[in-house]
């Protein structure tokens, strides 16, 4: 797929700018806080309807304005699609595809696929389980947009069940009345039904991703290290049969009944899943240097690219946010070799000189300054 143009209107620090992408690689040069990342954020938003920097739409609208609009034209193997998102300081967002308003946001997903790689991604190794869960979820949403709906339903069940557990705890009746016990049983069943869908899909995607990441990791680290990605679901399952998984949920809920009622919150379910990243039988978090952790993240990102390409049948976009400079020349070259000219890549950097000449060949170079975008003119 190819992102032909991107139009930012009152988005973040952009007043009104349109960018035409005319090469497979686009390098965006600029000082900090000029709008480089905002550009990539706009693409991320089109691909996932989410931003990893904020969950509030009002942050995305330019100061002093009420409405922002991000639109793009994407070329896919089946034709061109115009996508647009209208964001409001207050109120709901509206998404359109080929000028048609979509009733469900889910239908917007899947037209643009992108893998983003920023320096924040080191948190995948070092951060809390929450970071890894949202990484897997983000990938799943791109591969199977219906997962966005499944996850939303699960979170809804979770909130409702937590509200009920809190109520039970605050009533301090011990044991809780029959009426409340009966109600809780209903939410147990809902948690099991929706939770098992989330768990099964996460297991499935990690099963496919793990071998690809492993082989990349081996290649980048020079075949000295072995990476394992292990899904550690909160509710362990022996088989991938939906009924079996639901049964496992219900059993675990039964075991943790007292704890849940004392805490007043749900402790069983995929919101407590973990993804273990293991290098040479040692947890990657406690293993090795920053360089090794970077190698791991690079392998994960390359695996994401390949997996999306495999499933979608077209190479996704790659967004490199200020990350290239952090990689040593060897890893830079590995990355370049991996993407070749197949993946359209948008790269942001503060210094054009920080990477190898090979990167500059056949690249479109743009400069960003205070929300303005211009072609790059080299200083001679």
């Amino acid at each position, binding site marked *: 797929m190819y992102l032909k143009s991107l139009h930012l209107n009152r988005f973040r620090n952009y007043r009104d700018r349109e960018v035409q992408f005319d090469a497979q690689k686009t390098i965006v040069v600029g000082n900090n806080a000029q709008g480089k990342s905002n550009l990539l954020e706009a693409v991320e938003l089109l691909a996932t309807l989410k931003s990893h920097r904020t969950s509030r739409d009002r942050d995305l609208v330019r100061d002093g304005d009420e409405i922002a609009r991000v639109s793009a034209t994407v070329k896919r193997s089946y034709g061109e699609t115009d996508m647009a998102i209208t964001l409001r300081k207050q109120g709901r967002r509206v998404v359109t595809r080929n000028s048609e308003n979509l009733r469900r946001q889910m239908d917007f997903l899947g037209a643009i696929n992108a893998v983003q790689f920023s320096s924040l991604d080191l948190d995948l190794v070092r951060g809390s389980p929450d970071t890894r869960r949202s990484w897997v979820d983000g990938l799943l949403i791109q591969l199977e947009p219906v997962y966005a709906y499944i996850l939303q339903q699960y979170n809804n069940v979770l909130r*409702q069940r937590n509200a*009920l557990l809190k109520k039970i705890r605050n009533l301090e009746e011990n044991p809780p009345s029959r009426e409340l016990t009966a*109600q809780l049983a209903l939410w147990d069943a809902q948690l099991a039904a929706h939770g098992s869908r989330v768990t099964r899909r996460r297991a499935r995607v990690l099963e496919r991703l793990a071998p690809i990441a492993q082989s990349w990791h081996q290649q980048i680290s020079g075949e000295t290290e072995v990476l394992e990605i292990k899904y550690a679901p909160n509710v362990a399952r022996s088989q991938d049969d939906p009924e079996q998984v639901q049964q496992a949920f219900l059993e675990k809920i039964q075991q943790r009944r007292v704890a849940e009622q004392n805490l007043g919150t749900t402790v069983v379910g995929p919101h407590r899943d973990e993804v273990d990243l293991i290098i040479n039988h040692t947890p990657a978090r406690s293993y090795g240097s920053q360089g090794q952790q970077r190698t791991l993240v690079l392998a994960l990102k390359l695996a994401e690219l390949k997996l999306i390409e495999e499933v979608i049948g077209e190479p996704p976009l790659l967004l490199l946010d200020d990350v290239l400079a952090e990689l040593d020349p060897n890893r830079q070259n590995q990355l370049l070799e991996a993407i070749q000219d197949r993946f359209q890549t948008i790269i942001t950097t503060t210094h054009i000189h920080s990477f190898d000449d090979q990167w500059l060949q056949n690249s479109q170079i743009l400069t960003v300054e205070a929300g303005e975008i211009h072609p790059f003119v080299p200083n001679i």
Partner: protein
Amino acid sequence: MIEQLQKLPGVGPKTAQRLALHILNRSEDEVQGIAQALIDAKKQVGFCQTCFHLSAQSTCEICRNRDRDSSTICVVSDSRDVIALEKTREYDGKYHVLGGVISPMDGIGPEQLHIQPLVRRASTPEVREVILAISPSVEGETTTLYLGQLLKPFTKVTRIAFGLPMGGDLEYADEVTLARALEGRRELD
């Protein structure tokens, strides 16, 4: 006035402004008529004592109608659903309006809904079937499950089918609906 009008569902600042200007341009009599109609409706319309559908009398027209089949009760979450189902003219039984769905987050448990009266109605020998017609949201599903367990000892309980809209092509159906339709598939008779 604009602020008051904005409290109505579906009315944003612009519509509220338009409505306000329109009202100001009308004669006083006309405005009086609108205001009176609103107040009259609010004063007179209450809930049916039997099924909790909106009604100007203590028993609604549907419950009073002797031609309707009183052996089936269709359970819905609010009065809008009754109106929607009535438009189909397919159903000639009685209704029961719950007044919402179970939602602990909003502090709505079974005791906040009109469930006790429903149990009383369902346990009479006259009633032979209760049809649950509640939206398939997470909360709606939970309410359906709850009512199913509660009413089964008394009578036959069914739920309406969910699936593909009429005149729709299979290929255009979304995955969620399609999965649900597959789940609820049945043998051809």
